[in-house]
């Protein structure tokens, strides 16, 4: 039998060892982590504020089996919205497998479940929980009316929250207000807001909540009405007008209690009676109203007569028909003189002429005060009741003045409430010029005049229009800047007396387009210039000769008549025998004499019969019918 060697024994011993060591034990290890999913199980994801819900954390492995005995962590993204209840002492509660969710405030928050266990590979699981209110309720009035712009009201609303199983009003739950309309503005947010009246109308406020329980009453409505209660106030009920054309009106305020007006409102002024309309006229409003202050553009009372007028003030709504207020004002019109004048203030008058004058008073706006008591006194001029002049034709040039004086109601002193301004006295100054005489053919006359307006200032730019007693009129002339106008006038070349009358233009109306105050144009006569045209020099072409008879017995006589005329046919009344030459062929001329342009002479025929002739020449030129043939018998 073979004896095994030691090496064989060793080999036999080591072989299993090596074999064993080389084997893989395949002992299980791990896994490091388990694929796990965690989830939050809740009865519902919506909580009413104040309510709670029990959430369960569930972890399932890859096979969908529920893993037991784990400990979870819970976090809330916004613990003010969703909070957690204090865990109970049960294992499930203390380990986080059960957790009470409490709705604290309306909103939405993410609750995150995490599994802080290194054995599990798991992502945190969020779950959005919504906390809602159980309804919305407006706690204040549902229908309010504000009677003035900027009036304010308060609206309060609350979200309903759960308390001990009942819904009660909850504070600060994030009420959201919806404002429909633009007649009020809102201030503030949240439970309580303030609404401010802005304009008349109706707005709707809706209190709602973004997080409200479905099927609950999640909106409540309130109506806000803005209806301005406007009151008309007048700055004055009594107006005084001291001049015609004064435009007066009280300041009319149509505003609510806070002093805010309403756009579109208007005011009408209506004289109460016809007699009132004779005192004042109604003019359109000036400017525009200001709704911010309630001031309404008011029509104006324009004074047109001295008396007291009662005028009704009617405030109208924007529709133009609804009367918001009625009141009455009184306008006392009493013209007070600012100037007294004698018109025309300046005039040029030929001494033989006369022009009318008028003493008058004017108020501050230049309107004539018809009922003023104005007296006059003159110096250097003859003055009748209404006429200035005339004087004797031989009078020389001179100047006269007429000074007015005032008494009665138009005096400022008689009206203590009126401005006590001294009355300006504008006397009339009349230049009396001598009568001019011009010869025919050289009749042109230049007349200069001063024209003043009602303020006794040069009426620059105004016109003076002319008319004459005969012959063509000079054209109108315009008053220069110095108030002086001049006119060139050529009377006809016909002997006679001629008068040029210049009338200043009427003053502009004081109240366009009302008719101008009645003004007698005669008192606007600023020029009354008379000129006497006399015949020119004797002219052969117009002068004539005539005899009583052309057949004369020898030694008989006849009368020769020579009518001396100038070139225009005017009888030269101033003619003398020297102005012409009379010659006869055989007879003789004697006893030549002239009267008012008609000259006569006696012709004595010669002793023998035959023909004879009478020749009359002026400046060597035969006059008409000269030589005149005679038959001597």
């Amino acid at each position: 039998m073979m004896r095994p060697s030691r090496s064989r024994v060793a080999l036999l011993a080591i072989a299993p060892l090596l074999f064993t060591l080389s084997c893989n034990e395949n002992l299980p290890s791990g896994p490091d982590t388990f694929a796990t999913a965690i989830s939050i199980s809740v009865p519902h994801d919506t909580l009413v504020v104040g309510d709670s819900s029990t959430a369960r954390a569930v972890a399932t492995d890859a096979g969908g089996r529920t893993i037991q005995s784990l400990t979870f962590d819970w976090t809330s993204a916004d613990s003010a919205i969703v909070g957690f209840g204090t865990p109970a002492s049960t294992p499930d509660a203390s380990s986080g497998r059960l957790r009470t969710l409490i709705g604290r405030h309306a909103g939405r928050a993410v609750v995150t479940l995490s599994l802080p266990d290194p054995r599990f590979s798991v992502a945190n699981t969020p779950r959005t929980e919504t906390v809602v209110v159980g309804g919305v309720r407006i706690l204040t009035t549902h229908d309010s009316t504000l009677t003035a712009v900027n009036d304010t009201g308060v609206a309060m609303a609350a979200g309903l929250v759960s308390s001990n199983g009942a819904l009660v009003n909850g504070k600060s739950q994030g009420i959201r207000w919806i404002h429909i309309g633009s007649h009020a503005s809102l201030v503030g947010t949240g439970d309580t807001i303030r609404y401010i009246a802005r304009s008349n109308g109706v707005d709707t406020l809706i209190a709602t909540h973004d997080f409200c329980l479905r099927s609950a009453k999640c909106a409540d409505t309130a109506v806000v009405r803005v209806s301005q209660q406007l009151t008309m106030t007048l700055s004055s009920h009594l107006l005084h007008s001291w001049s015609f054309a004064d435009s007066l009106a009280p300041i009319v305020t149509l505003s609510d209690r806070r002093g805010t007006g309403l756009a579109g409102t208007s005011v009408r002024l209506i004289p109460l009676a016809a007699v009132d309309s004779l005192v004042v006229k109604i003019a359109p409003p000036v400017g525009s109203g200001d709704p911010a202050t309630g001031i309404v553009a008011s029509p104006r009372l324009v004074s047109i007569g001295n008396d007291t007028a009662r005028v009704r003030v009617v405030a109208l709504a924007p529709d133009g028909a609804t009367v918001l207020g009625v009141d009455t004002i009184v306008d006392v019109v009493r013209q007070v003189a600012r100037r007294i004048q004698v018109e025309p203030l300046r005039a040029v008058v030929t001494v033989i002429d006369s022009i009318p004058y008028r003493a008058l008073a004017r108020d501050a706006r230049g309107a004539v005060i018809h009922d003023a008591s104005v007296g006059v006194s003159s110096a250097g001029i003859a003055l009748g009741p209404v006429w200035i002049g005339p004087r004797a034709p031989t009078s020389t040039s001179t100047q006269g003045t007429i000074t007015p004086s005032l008494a009665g109601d138009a005096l400022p002193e008689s009206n203590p409430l009126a401005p006590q301004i001294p009355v300006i006295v504008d006397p009339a100054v009349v230049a009396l010029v001598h009568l001019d005489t011009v010869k025919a053919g050289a009749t042109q006359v230049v007349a200069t005049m001063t024209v003043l307006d009602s303020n006794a200032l040069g009426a620059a730019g105004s016109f003076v229009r002319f008319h004459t007693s005969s012959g063509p009129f000079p054209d109108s002339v315009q008053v220069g800047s110095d108030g002086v106008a001049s006119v060139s006038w050529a009377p006809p070349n016909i002997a006679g007396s001629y008068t040029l009358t210049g009338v200043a233009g009427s003053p502009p109306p004081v109240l366009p387009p009302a008719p101008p105050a009645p003004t007698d144009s005669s008192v606007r006569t600023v020029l009354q210039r008379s000129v006497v045209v006399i015949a020119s020099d004797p002219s052969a072409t117009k002068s004539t000769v005539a005899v009583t008879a052309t057949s004369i017995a020898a030694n008989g006589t006849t009368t020769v008549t020579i009518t001396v005329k100038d070139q225009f046919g005017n009888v030269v009344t101033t003619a003398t025998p020297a102005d012409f030459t009379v010659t006869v062929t055989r007879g003789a001329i004697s006893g030549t004499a002239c009267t008012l342009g008609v000259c006569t002479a006696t012709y004595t025929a010669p002793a023998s019969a035959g023909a004879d002739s009478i020749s009359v020449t002026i400046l060597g030129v035969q006059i008409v019918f000269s030589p005149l043939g005679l038959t001597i018998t």
Partner: protein
Amino acid sequence: MRISVDPIASPRGELDRFAGSPAKRASRSFVCAPTIAAGAVFAACALSMGVAASAPLGAQTPTRIDSGIVVGGDWLQANELPLDRDALQSGQVTVSLRRHRWSVDAGWLRIARTLSTVQGGMLSGGPLLHWGPVLFAPTIGVLGGRAQASRDSTGYDFVGPGGVAGHQPRYSYSSAATAGGGVGLAVEAPLYRIIGVRAVASQWFFSGAPLEGDRQRFLVGAGLSLRVGR
């Protein structure tokens, strides 16, 4: 790495699942088995030593495997079947130096369990007792080697569909040197000439962190022996 998710394969799962059932009773017996087996081994050893001391030499029947150098190999997984992992089952190979009355053994011992393996060099010895052709060999031995274990310490319990409870293991593997000691009894009978067949039971205790709380190993198995020298 292979992960078993079979709850039955999980020791802890076994405990949980078998609780209150016939299997539970088996599990309890299993738990107590190492202690009982150790007592039985010790009793058998004492009995064998007593028999050896009281039995006359002449009454002993010489066998060819009670002396000389005997090489043996045993399969020791009989009491821990099935081995639920893909690994070599428990066993040992020994080289024994036998001299009729005593025996000194050296060899390699491997104890494989589903979740642990202890293996290493072993040195044991003890008397040889003869009872007829049957040889009783109570031994006491030591082992030095390495312990490897996987522990399901961090698994989890679950409830599956239908409310069926279960456990998902999570193993932590550890390995460290170990030293152990044990007693055993081998009953060996000649089979054919220098070949013997034997049954082995032994109880071992091991040190080492991987075996914390699980230091006993009871082995039952069978093997063959072959005398390879004198």
